[in-house]
C-alpha cells in the first residue's frame, strides 16, 4: 500500500491504516471479538439478509428477462418487492460493516474482500444504468412479457454480479483468519474448531 516513493501517497496510505486500526480498537469491535456468540450471529444475519437480497432480485431479473411472472406489471412488482430488497440490503450492509470492524486491516488487505467491494460497486452502477435507460420508458413495456434488450442486459449482468458477490464473500472466509481476543483459558479453540472454522 505504501510502496510508492511519493511521500504524499505514503501519508494517505498510513492515514487509511490508522483509521482501520481505530475501527478495530472501538468498543463495538472489541465487544464483538470478546463474545463467543456475536460474530456467528452477525454472520447468520448477514446470510439471511443476502439471501433475501439475492432471492428478491432474482424475481425481478427473471421478470425483466421474460422467464417468469411474464403476465405481471413490472412497476407493480418492483414497488411490491424492492422495498424488501432494500430493507434486507440494509441488514446485510450493517452486519457486514460490524464484521469488517473486528478485523479491518486484514479484510482490507484481502484480495477476495477487495474484489467483493468492486463487484458491489459494479452492481450499484448496473442498477443506475437501468434507472437511466429502460426505467425511463417503463410505461411502454410495463405489461409486455419481457423488457427491452438494454433491461435484459442489465438483468443478466445483475444475476452474474450478485452470484459473484456471494462467491467472493465465501472466499473471504477461507483466506482470512478471524481476529479473536484471548480466549478463556479453559477453552482451546484449535481443538474445538479444527484448523478451518469457516
Amino acid at each position, binding site marked *: 500500500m505504501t510502496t510508492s516513493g511519493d511521500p504524499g501517497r505514503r501519508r494517505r496510505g498510513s492515514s487509511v491504516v490508522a483509521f482501520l486500526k481505530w475501527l478495530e480498537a472501538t468498543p463495538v469491535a472489541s465487544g464483538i471479538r470478546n463474545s463467543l456468540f456475536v460474530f*456467528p450471529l452477525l454472520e447468520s444475519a448477514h446470510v439471511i439478509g443476502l*439471501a*433475501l437480497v439475492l*432471492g428478491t432480485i432474482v424475481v425481478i431479473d427473471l421478470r425483466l428477462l421474460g422467464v417468469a411472472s411474464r403476465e405481471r406489471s413490472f412497476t407493480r412488482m418492483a414497488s*411490491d418487492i424492492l422495498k424488501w430488497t432494500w430493507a434486507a440490503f440494509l441488514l446485510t450492509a450493517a452486519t457486514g460493516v460490524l464484521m469488517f470492524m473486528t478485523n479491518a486491516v486484514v479484510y482490507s488487505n484481502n484480495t477476495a474482500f477487495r474484489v467483493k467491494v468492486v463487484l458491489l460497486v459494479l452492481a450499484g452502477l448496473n442498477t443506475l444504468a437501468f434507472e437511466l435507460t429502460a426505467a425511463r420508458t417503463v410505461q411502454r413495456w410495463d405489461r409486455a412479457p419481457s423488457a427491452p434488450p438494454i433491461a435484459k442486459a442489465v438483468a443478466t449482468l445483475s444475476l452474474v454480479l450478485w452470484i459473484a458477490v456471494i462467491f467472493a464473500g465465501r472466499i473471504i472466509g*477461507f483466506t482470512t483468519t478471524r481476529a479473536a481476543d484471548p480466549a478463556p483459558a479453559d477453552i482451546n479453540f484449535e481443538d*474445538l474448531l479444527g484448523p478451518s472454522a469457516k
Partner: protein
Amino acid sequence: MKHFAEWLSTTQPSVFIQQHNGWAIPTIQSIHIVGIAIVMGSVLLIDLRILGWAGMDQSLRQTTRRFGPWLTGSLWLLLATGILMVVGEPVRELVTFSFWLKMALVAIGALVAGIFQSQVRRHEQLWESTLVHRSSIKGLAVLTFLVWACIIVLGRLIAYDHVWGSWSPAARL
C-alpha cells in the same frame, strides 16, 4: 456418528473433495447459498401474499404456481449441495449439534411447504375465499419464515458448534 463420519471421510468421493479443497468447498457452499436465496425469496413472497402485503394483483394460487416450483427445486439443489458438503467434510458437519437441529427444522420446513402447496392446489376456492384471510394462517406464514431463518442461523453455527457448550458432541471429543 463419529465413527461413521470418520469412515465417510476415507471414501473416494470424500477424498476427492478434500484434495480439491481450495475451490471445491467454497464453490459448493456458494451454490448452496444461491439455493438458500431462492428459497428465502420464494418463501418471503408467498408469505407476503398471505399477509396481504405484496402481490395482491395475483391470486394465492397464481402466487404458489409462480414460486412453489422454484421453492421445491431449490430445496432439491440444497439437498444435493448439502450432501456434497457432508461428504467433503463429514466430521465438521455430522459431529455437531447445530447440524442435527438444522436437519430437524429442514424436515419441518419442507413438510409445511409441501402440505401447503398441495392444499392450495386441491382446495383452491376455500383458500382464496376463506383460509388466506384467517389470522391463524397468517401467523403460520410468519412462523414458517422464522423457521427458515433459524435454519440459516443453524447452518452458520455448524462452524461454531462450541456456542452450544456441552450440547455440542465436539465438546466431548
